């Protein structure tokens, strides 16, 4: 009876956490969509959305309603089942990592001791969804996007893992809370600046953001893997992209920028610091996106294999030596 109650409590906890996560993902997409448009507009010295609500803040809600009301068009020769599944598939991997993200000292879905590995493992599924979407569309441009996405993700998983390992070598734990707790005095972006930079660059590539947005590459592949998607399928991809951004920035915050640490971060108030850091990182990604041209595919690979991976390997080696000596 006792164990039964515990299970029920656990299930309830999981359900609440899951609902919260879904809400966060959607709200994050709304906020980020708005910020992206507004920051891009300001960078380009225009106003951006202004019509609906004060400073146009309701625009994204309205766009969401509009896009849900739109017809779902499936191309004639597309693989219908896979085509429909792909957006959902892109949604799963971006929801799961939220369960282990430490928002504050006591605010975490479940602090498992392999949290970091869990995030890396789950978010790798993302590339599968892009590939499936590109393949099922039966469109050559989409297929190009899919193929690019796969090789890009394979190349950039390695520097990400290596740079994260350098941090793990210091903390001796994979637990997200453990890593945050280790940064009470000094953030790891000061201890591991190279790993931090490598992670940020690779994370931009991992999330397919400009200047590494080759799977989408609007001017070359029209819109890459989501060329054929309309309505809600398309919006799921967009939501997934922003959620993905949130996750990589959250991981960066946890590993390099002290997580929820900050002045007056008590049991729960740390969430404010955490979100502030995550959103600052995401704003930087937006800022970068609206500044640079897109790199070419072989240059992207060059960057990963010739610069990021050797540098992260050397960095890992040095870290290991120093940790050993101390």
């Amino acid at each position: 009876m006792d164990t039964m109650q515990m299970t029920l409590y656990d299930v309830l906890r999981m359900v609440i956490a899951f609902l919260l996560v879904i809400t966060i993902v959607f709200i994050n997409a709304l906020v980020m969509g708005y910020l992206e448009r507004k920051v891009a507009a300001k960078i380009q010295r225009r106003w951006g959305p202004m019509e609906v609500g004060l400073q146009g803040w309701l625009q994204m809600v309205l766009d969401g309603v509009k896009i849900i009301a739109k017809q779902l068009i499936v191309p004639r020769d597309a693989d219908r089942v896979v085509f429909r599944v792909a957006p959902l598939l892109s949604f799963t991997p971006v929801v799961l990592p939220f369960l282990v993200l430490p928002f504050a000292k006591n605010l975490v879905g479940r602090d498992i001791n392999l949290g970091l590995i869990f995030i890396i493992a789950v978010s790798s599924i993302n590339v599968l969804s892009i590939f499936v979407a590109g393949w099922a569309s039966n469109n050559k441009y989409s297929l190009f996007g899919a193929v690019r996405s796969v090789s890009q993700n394979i190349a950039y998983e390695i520097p990400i893992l290596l740079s994260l390992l350098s941090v793990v070598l210091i903390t001796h734990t994979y637990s997200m809370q453990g890593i945050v707790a280790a940064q009470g005095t000094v953030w790891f972006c000061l201890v591991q600046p190279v790993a931090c930079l490598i992670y940020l660059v690779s994370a931009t590539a991992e999330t397919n953001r400009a200047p590494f947005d080759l799977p989408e590459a609007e001017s070359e592949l029209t819109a890459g893997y989501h060329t054929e998607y309309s309505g809600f399928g398309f919006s799921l991809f967009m939501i997934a992209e922003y959620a993905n951004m949130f996750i990589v920035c959250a991981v960066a915050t946890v590993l390099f920028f002290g997580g929820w640490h900050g002045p007056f971060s008590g049991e729960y108030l740390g969430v404010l610091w955490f979100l502030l850091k995550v959103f600052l990182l995401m704003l930087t990604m937006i800022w970068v996106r609206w500044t640079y041209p897109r790199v070419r595919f072989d240059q992207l690979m060059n960057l990963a294999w010739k610069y990021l991976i050797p540098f992260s390997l050397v960095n890992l080696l040095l870290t290991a030596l120093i940790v050993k000596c101390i």
Partner: protein
Amino acid sequence: MSGYFSDLITGSKSLLVGLGVTLKALVSPVVTVQYPREKIDVSPAFRGHIDLMKDETTGTHRCIVCLSCMKACPCQCITVEGEKQEGVKGKVLTLFTLDFTKCSLCGLCVESCKPHAIDFSDEYELAGFSREEFFYDLLKRVKERA
């Protein structure tokens, strides 16, 4: 190998400079205008569609039905008709229409008009749901304005 590190350094520097440019723009004032809310003054030379001008002294148009605008128009979008009326010297204008769907706003008709009877209007908010809305009866328009 020689270019390996120099590429890295100059490249990173150029990227930072680029970020600086956009950051500066981010905090600079906006240059666009919120169009339906605020409007910019129309330049006096603006070429809208043509309109018959009202003569201040006579209170009506100045057209003498010489048909030179009709002849000058490369798109044949102007139709002018007149008739002889008793007691009036020359012809009297009975019809002056503009098919604005064909007009290319070149201004040749205005230049050809000796008595300066036609001129450009400064209307630029022209949108409609049907073709017919752009067949203007200029004679009627000048009378309505009077």
